[in-house]
């Protein structure tokens, strides 16, 4: 029972919860060291000293164990070294064996700088994270001491002690008496904030969900924009836009506005031969002669081209048994008497110009290859209709 009189220092106007601690302030470091010693001696264990800067000798006065933070540092440091060396070993020996400058795959001296840096990185950053998260339980801005006049003073120029109500030895009157006897000033209680205690963060709070949704929209929007738009804009577009004229595009540089220059009159493409038998299959049959001899090399070439270009419709053995499952009209067999009796020039003409449903293959199959295909068709025909002499 404490009176709400004028001597109460840390009076809370806000919604009060249960008692957290009794606090007292001191003016000098000597006093606070003395206070810590006395409070420890009296057997209190759940108390804290709050000072604007670390006061030498406080650990001893408070009977604190030495900080064990270094063990974590050692662990994280070793983790860093092992990770870095192990990773570089795996890359150079297993995943990406590449001879560089004639040196061995596993060049450990070259690994020293990176192993060192990763060791320092993990050890120092994770030590701080461990300290903040594991030791301090931070971030935590709703501790009962926050926003009290007590905290305002100890963070500037006073030295404070706070004996918690959950200490097994805690008895309010005795604690006040002890603090008074060691010279504490502004002795007063600190309460839990009832609002803070009643407030438990909920997952489905509309505010939280709103922030979550907004983050999701922003992140996915930014990602979509980066990958689908930004990467196709200059200068990120992998040098796709350059100061040069592309084929078949207009250009202001020339008078006629055409980017490409027309060739000099009478220019002929290299290897070009005029085809004078357009629409004249008979003449083609009469005048054209296969320039290739039925040698194994030519037959092999013809076979390869036949299988690529002709066999889808004509079938692998030119029997007119298309592989296209009726998606395109089947051509007649090439083993008919008509085709067998055609001179080579006629077949050549069909390939060059097309016939009925068959389009021209002149642009796809070079001249010599067409002749090679004819050699192969002749071989297929001979296989279906062998001569007597073939059986000897």
């Amino acid at each position, binding site marked *: 029972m404490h009176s709400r009189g004028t001597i109460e220092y840390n009076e809370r106007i806000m919604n009060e919860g249960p008692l957290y601690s009794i606090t007292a302030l001191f003016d*000098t*470091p*000597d006093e606070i*060291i*003395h206070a810590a010693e006395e409070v420890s001696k009296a057997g209190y264990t759940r108390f*804290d*000293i*709050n*000072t*604007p*800067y*670390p*006061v*030498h*000798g*406080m*650990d001893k006065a*408070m009977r*604190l164990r030495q*900080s064990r*933070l*270094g063990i974590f*540092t050692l662990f994280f440091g070793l983790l860093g070294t092992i990770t870095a060396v192990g*990773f*570089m070993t795996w*890359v150079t020996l297993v995943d990406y064996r*590449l001879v560089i*400058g004639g*040196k061995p795959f596993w060049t450990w001296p*070259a*690994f020293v*700088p*990176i192993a*060192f*840096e*990763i060791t*320092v*990185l993990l050890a*120092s*950053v994770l*030590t*701080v994270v461990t*300290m*903040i998260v594991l*030791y*301090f339980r*931070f*971030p*935590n*801005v709703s*501790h009962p*001491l926050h926003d009290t006049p007590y*905290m*305002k003073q*100890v*963070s*500037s*120029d006073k030295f404070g002690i706070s004996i918690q109500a959950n200490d097994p030895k805690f008895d309010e009157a005795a604690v006040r008496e002890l603090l008074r006897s060691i010279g504490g000033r502004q002795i007063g209680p600190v309460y839990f904030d009832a609002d803070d205690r009643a407030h438990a963060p909920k997952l489905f709070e509309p505010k939280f969900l709103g922030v979550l949704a907004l983050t999701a929209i922003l992140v996915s929007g930014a990602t979509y924009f980066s990958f689908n738009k930004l990467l196709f804009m*200059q*200068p990120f577009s992998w040098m796709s836009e350059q100061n040069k004229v592309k084929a078949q595009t207009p250009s202001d540089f020339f008078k006629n506005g055409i980017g490409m220059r027309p060739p000099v009159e009478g220019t002929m493409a290299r290897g070009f031969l005029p085809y004078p038998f357009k629409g004249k299959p008979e003449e083609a049959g009469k005048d054209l002669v296969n320039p290739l001899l039925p040698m194994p090399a030519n037959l092999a070439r013809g076979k390869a081209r036949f299988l690529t270009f002709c066999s889808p419709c004509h079938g692998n053995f030119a029997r007119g048994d298309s592989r296209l499952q009726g998606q395109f009209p089947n051509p007649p067999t090439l083993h008919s008497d008509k085709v067998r009796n055609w001179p080579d020039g006629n077949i050549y003409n069909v390939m060059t110009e097309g016939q009925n449903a068959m389009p021209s293959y002149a642009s796809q199959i070079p001249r010599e290859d067409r002749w090679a295909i004819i050699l192969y068709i002749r071989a297929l025909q001979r296989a279906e209709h062998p001569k007597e002499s073939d059986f000897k």
Partner: protein
Amino acid sequence: MSTAAIEYRQEIPVVEGKPSAAQIDATIAAPLDEFPKRTWWVTFAVTATMLGFGAYCAFMTVFEGLGLWGINIPVAWGFDITNFVFWIGIGHAGTLISAILFLLRQHWRTGVARFAEAMTIFAVICAGMFPVLHLGRPWLPLYLMPYPNQHGVWINFMSPLVWDVFAVSTYFTVSLVFWYTGLIPDLATLRDRTTNKVKKTIYSIFSLGWRHSNRHWQHYERAYLILAGFATPLVLSVHTIVSFDFAVSVLPGWHSTIFPPYFVAGAVFSGFAMVQNVLIFVRQSFKLKHIITMNHLEKMNQIMIVTGSMVAYSYLMEFFIAWYSGNEFERFAFLNRALGPYAWAYWIMVCCNMLAPQLFWIKKIRRSIPAMLAIGVLVNIGMWFERFVIIITSLHRDFLPSSWGMYYPTIYDIGILIGSFGLFFTLILIFVRVLPVVSISETKAVTESAQPGHH
């Protein structure tokens, strides 16, 4: 004891006068509470303009490509790498002050450590910009890191340039963590001081709920010691690795075993010149003369004599080795440095780095603000030219005379250099207005009778 005859063997009070803890709070937090004055705005306008010009040049470089720069074969590394090494070097003073002097129990570091650490971070930001721009496609820096990719390719762990990526990024991260760890108690003090609701929210978030508890201070001090212990070899490793970028190559003028210590000494040298220069203005304009005292500045000047002399020794030793090695190419490279087309740059470097800091042997100069300001500026000019000389003169004379060439920076090269200074000083100007430039809790801890007497 008069101030004129300081007994160096005796402990000098770190903080002059005997300000109370509340006065320290008020002095250090003052720039954060008041609206900036005209001087600040004018300075800010100048640095922001420089930054803007640099940003324009950087944008054009990204948009048009590296053809806008003066680099070409044989001089493929120009202002970009010069600036990179220069800025990384500037950063080193911060870590040296915060970590090495901490381990050496040099209590005077308290007044300048926070500011120097901030400078480290800003300098590394400036430095990091250059290699990334130098990539040509700066939006693909991920390619520098080993990450599983569809190309099935890993980076080459034998390359000093890859070591550099790890060194600089680790250096930045650890410096940032170190700096932030130091800031937590101060942010808590600011949180409890301020009456502004927005500021209070920001300070509350970043102070993480610090309660100045001694159960926390205990671990905090240990963590700070551990961080200092790691930052010390780290800072030495960073410029060592930067020097490997050169020393591991086979180019005369670069291929030299003296490079690591020489680079580290040079980095500390230029870093201290920069810290000293900027602090002169900070202590003046924010009335911190009793916290950042003349003794602090003098000590920094003394460190500049030490490191400056180490750098001078390296310059001489390079020439000696070039002669002593009997290697014709090596000899030519160094004679060409001193007498060739870039001799002017070499002699600027010698005057500014070897001769100017030797004036600090005279105590009057060491304790005179205008003199130390001038020498500090000269040292930084000299140190910039040192990197210019090392990079450009070694490259511009190839092994075959038919491959010789010259390097002429373009307006974009110069613009980005100006922009990096703009960025650095703009960040500093913002920093001095939003965060305490001196550590509040550490300063309180080193004032007289801040620690319990023996009882």
